[in-house]
C-alpha cells in the first residue's frame, strides 16, 4: 500500500441548527467535531459508529453535498472546500457516492440508460453511440443483464438497483468513492453479492473508498483501516484486524462486544452495555463517552482527550492510552 494519501481531511467541522423558529432560538448540533484523517491511494477506510454519530454527515461533507463549517479537505492535493462552481464540477467526476437506500437513490421515471447517460452528457465526456457503448459497458461491469438499459428502476430487485447506483457512480471513472451504508438495506444473501462487486471494482479500477457502515462485520471484511466515531468525534483509528481484535478505546470495545457473531459459544457474553447515546444537542462535558464508560476517571468529565498516536499506525482519543499529564 502506498502511503501517499488521495484524501487528507484536517479539522473538519459541521454544525446544524435544529428546531428553532419564531421566538425560539435554534439549538445547535455539532455533527462533526474536528475530524482529521487521511485515505491512502487505493485503500479503503471504514467509518463506523451508531446512528446519529455524524458518520454520514462527515461523508457528505467530503463531497460538499453538505457544506462544512470549518477545516480543509485536500483531494489529490487540492482543497475541495475552496473550489468554486466549475472547479467543483470537475472534481465531482473524480469523487462519487453510493447511497444506502436503493429505492430512493434512483429517479423512478428515468430508465437505466437515461440515468447512466446523463452524467456523460452533462460533463461532455461522450456523445452519440459512444454514450450507449459506455453505458452498456457499465451495465456489464456491475453484473446486470444486458437488456437492463431500457428498463425502469421498479423492474429491478433491491440488489440490482444497488448495482445500478454503483454503475452510476462509476460511469464518470472516479478515483474515489464514498459508500454510505451501501449494503445495509439489502438481504444477507444479496449483501454479499454487492460487497463482492465493490471489492472487484476497487481492485480493477484502483479506487480509494470511504466506507460508511454501522456493521462492524462488513467493515472488517472490506476495509483496510477503520475510524470509529462517537457523538461527532473520531475516537479511534487503526488498521483492520487490530481494531477489532484489540480495540483500545472503551467505546470501540463496547461496540465490538455488542456486535453479534454467528457463534452460540459467544452468547453468555451478552455484553452489559451501560446507558444510551446522549442527545447530540447537549453532549456531556469532557470526553463525550464518559457517562457510559466503565473506565471513566475524574479527569474524563472535565477534559476532552485528543486523538493521539499510539503504537504504530494507530490513533486513539482516550486518557487511558495517552501519556500521563
Amino acid at each position, binding site marked *: 500500500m502506498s502511503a501517499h494519501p488521495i484524501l487528507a481531511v484536517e479539522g473538519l467541522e459541521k454544525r446544524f441548527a435544529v428546531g428553532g423558529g*419564531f*421566538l*425560539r432560538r435554534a439549538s445547535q448540533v455539532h455533527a462533526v467535531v474536528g475530524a482529521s484523517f487521511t485515505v491512502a491511494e487505493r485503500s479503503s477506510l471504514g467509518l463506523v459508529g451508531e446512528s446519529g454519530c455524524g458518520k454520514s454527515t462527515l461523508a457528505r461533507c467530503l463531497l460538499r453535498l453538505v457544506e462544512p463549517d470549518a477545516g480543509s479537505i485536500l483531494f489529490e492535493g487540492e482543497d475541495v472546500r475552496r473550489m468554486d462552481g466549475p472547479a467543483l464540477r470537475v472534481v465531482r467526476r473524480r469523487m462519487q457516492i453510493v447511497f444506502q437506500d436503493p429505492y430512493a437513490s434512483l429517479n423512478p421515471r428515468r430508465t437505466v440508460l437515461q440515468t447512466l447517460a446523463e452524467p456523460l452528457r452533462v460533463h461532455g465526456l461522450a456523445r452519440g453511440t459512444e454514450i450507449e457503448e459506455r453505458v452498456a459497458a457499465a451495465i456489464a461491469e456491475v453484473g446486470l443483464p444486458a437488456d437492463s438499459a431500457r428498463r425502469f428502476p421498479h423492474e429491478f430487485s433491491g440488489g440490482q438497483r444497488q448495482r445500478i447506483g454503483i454503475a452510476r457512480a462509476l460511469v464518470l471513472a472516479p478515483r474515489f468513492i464514498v459508500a454510505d451504508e451501501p449494503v445495509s438495506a439489502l438481504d444477507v444473501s444479496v449483501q454479499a453479492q454487492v460487497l463482492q462487486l465493490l471489492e472487484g471494482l476497487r481492485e480493477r479500477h484502483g479506487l480509494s473508498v470511504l466506507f460508511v457502515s454501522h456493521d462492524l462485520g462488513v467493515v472488517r471484511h472490506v476495509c483496510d483501516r477503520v475510524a470509529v466515531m462517537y457523538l461527532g468525534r473520531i475516537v479511534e483509528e487503526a488498521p483492520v484486524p487490530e481494531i477489532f481484535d484489540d480495540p483500545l478505546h472503551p467505546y470501540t470495545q463496547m461496540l465490538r462486544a455488542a456486535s453479534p457473531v454467528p457463534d452460540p459459544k459467544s452468547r453468555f457474553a451478552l455484553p452489559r452495555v451501560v446507558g444510551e447515546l446522549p442527545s447530540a444537542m447537549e453532549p456531556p462535558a469532557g470526553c463525550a463517552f464518559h457517562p457510559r464508560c466503565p473506565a471513566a476517571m475524574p479527569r474524563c468529565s472535565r477534559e476532552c482527550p485528543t486523538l493521539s498516536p499510539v503504537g504504530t499506525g494507530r490513533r486513539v482519543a482516550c486518557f487511558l492510552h495517552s501519556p500521563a499529564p
Partner: protein
Amino acid sequence: MGEFLLRRVALAVPTLLLAMTAVFVLARVVPGDPALVILGDQASLEALAALRERLGLDRPILQQYLDFLLGILRGDLGRSLVTGKSVWAEVLAVIPYTIELTLAAIVIGVVLGVPLGVYAAVHRNALPDTLTRLFSLAGLSFPAFVSAILLLLAFAIELRWFPVISAPKVDDPLDRLRHLALPAFNIGLIMTAYVTRVTRSSMLNVLGEDYVRTARAKGIGMRAVLWRHALRNALIPVATVVGLYLGTLIGNSVLTEIVFNRPGLGKLILGALNQRDYTLLQGLMVFFAGFIVLANAATDIAYGIIDPRVRYK
C-alpha cells in the same frame, strides 16, 4: 403548553400584517380611478375630487398604507360610503345570523360526518363504503346556491314546511329555529359530505398504522381500538382540514343567505357590491382576513391539544 400557546398567537401577528397588506394591495389594483368606478361616468369633476379626498386617495401611497394599518390597529375598519355607519356597526348588526348559521352547519357536519366517515373506513370497499363515497362526492359537487334553490323549491315552495324568506323574529326561539332549519341543513349537508370524506381517508391511514396493530395485539377489542386509538389520531388531520374549510364554509353561507333572503354577512356583501360601497367592501375584507387568521391560530392550538407531538416540538 403555555409557551406553545404564546408562540402560536405571536405567530399570527406577522401573518395578520401580511393579510392586511394583501387586502390593501388588492383594494388598490383597481384599474383606473376607484372614484370613477364608484360614481360612474356621469359624475362631475368636483364630486370625483371630493370622493377621492374622502377615500384618502389623494395622499401618497405609503401614507395611505400607514393610515390603513393604524386604523386597523385602533380597531377602525372604516365607514360605509352609503350609510355612513362604521363597518363594525354594519357587521355587528347582522353577524349573529351568520354565526348561528355557520355554527349549526359545523355541528351538523361533525355530528353526521365523523361517524359516517369512520363507518365507511371500517367497511372499506364494501357497499356502504361505496354509497358513502358517492354521497360525499355528490355533496361536494353541489354549488351551495344550487342545493339551496332545490331545497327552497321542495320544502318551502312545494311542501310549505318552512318559510320561503328566512327572516326570523329575534325574540322567538322556535321561530328562529324554523327559519334556520333549511339554510343550516343546506350548508350542513355539504359540510357533512366534506367531513365524511376527510374522516374516511384519515381513518384509513390510521388503521394502517403500526400502533393500531399493537393495540389489536393487546387484545383490547376492536371497538376500543377504533375509538380510543384510531379515532383520536384520525381526528388530528380532520381538525386542520375542517379549519381550512372555514373559508369555503363562509362562502357557502353567503350564497345560502342570498338564496333564502336571510340577513347576514352575505346580504351585507351583496348590498355593498350592488351599491358600489367601496369602503364597506374593504372593511369587510379586513374583517374576514382577520377572522380567518385568528381562526387558523385557533385550529393550530386545537391541533396542539390533541397531538402532544406538536406541543413539545
